């Protein structure tokens, strides 16, 4: 298989080797991924596409270290996740990874500033001023400065997703996972979110891995991986023209 990378000499930041994931369902097991081999280069901007139930979320969860594979190995920056203890996995999520959820998942009792500050507080180590500077900078970047002190329920969907992006990026993670980041947004807002992600990818070289159903969103990716029934069926550069969804 081929990899699309701007710095071909560097080792891949994410590697999936013969990964399968089965979910137990009563006495049955549901195979969600069946033998995935995938390498993702640092700074890539990659879309995972595929029909519903094809295993996109499962794949992102494995890369995002919120789950471990049934068989095979997931390597993040050279570390095999299955070999890490729970606390180490958590620490990996905190320091190396960022998560943008389809449903935003902001902490309702905290305002915009506090939500974005939260991962920095969990990390510790920064002085209060440095931390506040970083948060403010992040808020500026996602263009939410007027909403700094508002609670999530006082924001629009696009604003919430921008808070989620800011929260995922504030720790300057190496990899950001986004599971259908635009699915709950209208197409205009969704486009703006993708633009924002692209901008950050371009400036900070943050690796983005996102899933989507939306052909327009796919067209922004540098690399498009298509899943069907837990298998990779295609791995290519997306068409630059927006196309109707589906295979």
């Amino acid at each position, binding site marked *: 298989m081929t990899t699309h990378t701007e710095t071909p000499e560097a080792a891949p930041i994410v590697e999936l080797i013969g990964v399968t994931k089965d979910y137990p369902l009563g006495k049955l097991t549901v195979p969600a991924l069946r033998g995935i081999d995938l390498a993702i280069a640092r700074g890539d901007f990659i879309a995972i596409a595929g029909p519903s139930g094809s295993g996109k*979320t499962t794949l992102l*969860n494995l890369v*995002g270290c*919120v*789950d471990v594979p049934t068989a095979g190995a997931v390597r993040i920056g050279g570390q095999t996740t299955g070999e890490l203890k*729970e*606390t180490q996995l*958590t*620490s990996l*999520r*905190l*320091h190396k*990874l*960022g*998560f943008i*959820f*389809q*449903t935003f*998942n902001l*902490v*309702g*009792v*905290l305002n915009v500033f*506090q939500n974005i*500050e*939260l*991962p920095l*507080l*969990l*990390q*510790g180590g920064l002085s209060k001023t440095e931390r506040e500077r970083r948060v403010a900078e992040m808020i500026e970047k996602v263009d939410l400065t007027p909403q700094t002190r508002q609670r999530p329920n006082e924001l629009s969907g696009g604003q919430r997703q921008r808070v989620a992006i800011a*929260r*995922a990026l504030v720790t300057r993670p190496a990899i950001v996972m986004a*599971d259908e980041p635009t699915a709950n947004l209208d197409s205009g807002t969704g486009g703006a979110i993708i633009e924002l992600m692209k901008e950050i990818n371009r400036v900070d070289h943050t690796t983005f891995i996102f899933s989507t159903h939306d052909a327009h969103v796919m067209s922004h990716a540098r690399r498009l991986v298509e899943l069907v029934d837990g298998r990779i069926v295609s791995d290519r550069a997306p068409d630059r023209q927006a196309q109707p969804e589906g295979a």
Partner: protein
Amino acid sequence: MRGTGILFRMALRSLASHKVKSLIVGSIMLFGTALVVVGTALLDSVEAGMQQSITKSLSGDLQMYDSEAKDDLALFGGMAMGADDYGEVPDFARVQTVVEAVPGVEAVVPMGIGLATMSRGSELDRTLDALRQAARAGTIAGEQGQALVARLERLIDLLRTELINSRALLQDTTEVDAQIASIERARGDAFWAEFAADPVAALDFLDSKVAPAGGEGLLYYLRYLGTDLDQFARYFDRFRIVEGEPVPTGHRGLLINQRFADSQLKLKVARLLDDIHDAMTQNGARIATDPALTAKARQVASLYGAISLMLSPEDAHATETELRRALGITDGTLDTLLEALLTVDDANFAERYALFYDLIGPRITLYPYRVGDVVTLRAWTRRGYMKSVNVKVYGTFKFEGLERSELSGAANLVDLMTFRDLYGQMTAAQEEELRAIREEVGLEHVGRADAEAAFFGGDADSQVTGAEAFGTFDEMHPPTSDERSDERPSEAARRTITDETFTREQMLDGVVLNAAVILDRDAQGGTGDIEVARVRVQAAVDAAGLKLKVVDWRAASGIIGQFVLVVRGVLILAIGIIFIVALVIINNSMLMATLERVREIGTLRAIGAQRSFVQAMVMIETLVLGLLSGTAGAGLGAGIITWMGHVGLPATSDILVFLFSGPRLRPTFGASHLLIALVVILIVSLISTWYPARIATRVQPVEAMGDA
């Protein structure tokens, strides 16, 4: 822990956004804390009050008694009604020397408790006594003297009727016949001529031949505490003389407990009226609605006959006139007037009560003794024979603040020498003499306990008639008629008291049953200090080889001392139950809150929060709530106690007067009460959140995914 600041912020925000849950859990915690503060503060105040009542009236801080005693010391009365065996302390002087040398000990006061009957002769005896005094003063011919003579004639007539009635029931009538013959002589004109000529000789005749037939008069049971009366007055702060004077140093004497007198000795009709009066004025009870008062009121009305008998003819006349005017009744006899007076209801009670004490009270004997009287105390000594001692009533006393408490009437006071006489401590010569007498009459040794069981029977009422009491004595010790007249010496001899005074050394050198240890005033702090002193005193008596048991006031007082322990147990149980309920409720609502927050917790885990963070988040939330509502609850509790301390809790029953150490409890609280309550509520918070917190830590990061 990283992010402690955010944890508190999240806790507060979370509490604010789950208002109903926070309110329910918070109010449970608030009331729980308030309950702990109020409960413990009240209990400590009651304990302090009780300590006052007990230590400043009878026990002192510590008590010492025979380490081989069969029964536990019970100063306020035990199970056996005076038959308790506390062993004895043979050499008090030595004990005092040893224990007063212990640092922190201020004084050691000797004591001995016993039960005796008290009698003051019959109405006939007392009339003869008064006439003898009148004869000595030469006032027999005067108005008062003639009134006494009139009463004497009436009493002799009554006695005659009584004897003739009883004669019909007897098989052997020789004794009664002789008595009746004497009475017939006393009723003859010749006798009264003799009386006018030589009253003293006539009185001697009546004293020796007629009065014995009249019996002993009324007998009363009396629990007494023999002690060093000077020391007692000095170290027992609650002690106050009510009437009369303290027994002079070195003299024998009896001080009657005013509470005991009012509740046991006082004339029944007056006692009932007092009861009704107290219930109405202090507790706001009403005769019409309170069944106990209704019964008492009915009983009062039935007792008019007892009063008319006690009135002298001229008093009877005056009373009749005055009653007619006061009640506005023109016809009827004195008895019907008295019955009308004593027929009380809610409307007329106050007026009738006042009339009784204004018109009747001064003319009858409300108490069977008067200050200055000489009474006869009789008790079974521990060797099983009966001992009588004549002793002067110097006065009555009370324990201040405890006037209304039945328990404060637990003991009357006598000097230590009288106690020893009644206890039966004898010199070697006396013992030898007694042994000789015993052999002569073939009297078997009677165990003290058996004797008292027979003596006191099962009847708890203090008052017995002379005839009944002597009937019981006769079974124990069937007297020949010679012995009987020996036992009942002439009136003059019976009323003789020893003029002998005693020195302090004589008083201290001898047997006592127990001793109170008074600690230095500044050392008398909490229970801890007293326990330290107790251990020290115990060590000192052990080292000196004295076979003594040293107990604190609580243990020495008997069942009443355990009261606070029992109440404390009940309170702890109640608080425990309330907190278990609180625990379940807090646990449930926290669990529900946790389950509602699974996605949020999953999100936190997914973005890199460790399990420990999640656990802390849930726990801190409850802790913050516990701290806030606990502080508010402690404040509320402190407020309630302050308010109670301000208005005072009325002691609505006798036992409460004792427990409160006065008519009202004014509770106070200390920092410790607030602190204990806060600590308790925080512990409860932590325990109740343990399980929800555990559930929260089990939430997986993937649970952040999925639909909102």
